[in-house]
């Protein structure tokens, strides 16, 4: 399974990168979101995966009696997800505003600030 997930991670990165290299702002944002997903999955995978063992202490005990999945990557991803949500929301709205103001979705037409 790890191999499959590793390949998926690779694909998420590749797809994200391919999309951010496009001219359309919408694709750009989607690409960034895919990259974010890739990074989250990477944290998850590299924190090692284990099936059916949520890191929740059973009701009747005070410590784990069984094996449990590493909770740290989960907490990290959770934080990362929420943060990316904020950033993505902002980016999406930025795209909307930029489109309204510049009248184009084509990033190659937004070059005025780079001119001498």
């Amino acid at each position, binding site marked *: 399974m790890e191999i499959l997930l590793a390949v998926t991670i690779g694909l998420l990165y590749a797809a994200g990168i391919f999309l*951010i290299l496009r001219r359309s*702002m919408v694709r*750009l944002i989607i690409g*960034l979101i895919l*990259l*974010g997903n*890739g*990074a989250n999955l*990477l*944290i998850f*995978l*590299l*924190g*090692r995966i284990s099936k059916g063992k949520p890191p929740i202490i059973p009701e009747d005990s005070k410590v784990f009696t069984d094996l449990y999945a590493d909770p*740290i*990557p989960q907490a*990290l991803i959770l*934080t*990362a997800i929420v*943060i990316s949500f*904020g*950033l993505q929301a*902002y*980016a999406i709205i*930025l*795209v909307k*505003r*930029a489109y309204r*103001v*510049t009248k184009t979705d084509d*990033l190659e037409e*937004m*070059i*005025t*600030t*780079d001119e*001498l």
Partner: protein
Amino acid sequence: MISHFLIWPILLPLLSAIVMMFFWSKPREQRVISVVGHFFTLISAIFVATRTMKGDIYTLFAGNWEAPYGIVFVGDALSGALVALASFSALAVSIFSAGSIGNGRASFGFFPILQFLLMGLNGSFLAGDLFNLYVWFEVIIISSFVLITLGSEKAQLEGAMKYVTMNLLASIIFLTGIAMLYGLLGSLNLADLSRRIAESPDIGLINTAAVLLLVGFGIKSALFPMYFWLPASYHTPPAAVSAIFGGLLTKVGVYAMFRVFSLLFIDDPFIRKTIIILAILSMIAGALGAMVQENIRKIFSYLIISHIGFMFAGLGLFTELAIIGAIFYLFHDIIAKTNAFLISGIIYKIRGSFRLENIGGLYNQFPYVSILFALALFSLVGTPPLSGFWPKLYLLQGAFADLNAWMMFGILLASLLTLLAVVKIWIAAFWKKPQVRKEIQERAVWHTLDQQHKIILLTPIIMLTLASLLLAFYSSEVGSLAALIAQQLSDPRIYIEAVIPTP
């Protein structure tokens, strides 16, 4: 040493921001709270700095969970100094903003976000945990996103598209590096990581993380060839925003590089060499860019890139002299760049434009202000005995010790080109006959301001120039502080021992 005081430079901006959010659409109250908040933050930051510069390293275990289990805030000499400098620059910008940011932006969160930005900066400097550093970085970038687009002018939005994209990419790369390190070492605490890396057999894999962080932080600090977002965007927001960005944002990347590459990644010749090459190319590429720009803020923007190269050069060499040079330059650059952009703001108020062809005549019209500006600008250049000169001496010595001719060449060439770029500004904006153009005339509001308002706008520049002069005047002391920092950076054991004492 457990020390509550480390948290105040983080909490005070947060507190001020929260209070301001309760005064959401009351710009007048916000301006006062902003300045007061920044002032107290500065006090707390100076408190931190004066303690850390004695050589002790202070820690604060958030939640009372000892390292490496909880999040630890660490104040060593570098962190302390940067917290103080950042808070100082922020106070200057805050005063400037109080005088220059109109009610439009002020009633849409400008001031709270300025506080959040400072909070993020101070947090980054004090973070002793890699993931915590990531989160602080996010605070910084989102605040900067908002500040850079606040107002939604066309240029702002276009610049922000690039700024946002590249910064988000950098964050993702950073996060990827964190994933690698956690996967390999099972820890996030910097000291703990350092300890584990020293014993790890997987240095090869750890180097991939090093590369990821190099690129991630490289983008954030506008290192060649990852700087594109900077000249595309820094000249678009209000001058106050450019100032705090120019002074502090890229520096956090530099700081993070220093922290991570001193503590975590052991000496890998390939990576060191890469850093040196990119540093030299930054110096030159940035300076070349500055040479040909016609917009004051763009000139400064490119100079940021060029001067980031100086700091990275020190990091790449990583000898004591080189680190001293880089750290000293870092201190100097925070002050000088903030000041430069604030000056551009005043010039805009006077002439209504940032473009050189629209300015002129300042020297004859405002001789004393001009001399003040000249001091600031020549500090930026590094004309001896002003502050930028001293770190370069260390760097040149360091480069010689390494027999690195290219680096010496880069530093000297970049210095020369910086001089020429600034002189170009001087001639065009200060000497040349003033250009009067109808279409920009209405934006030149200086003459409509009352005396008090003008003083508010000039105060931060005087503050920063004085600070710059102090850096120069006490160059020997600053050098000693930088030497202390270099010593702390060169020996991770000091840091580790402070954070996770051996029982």
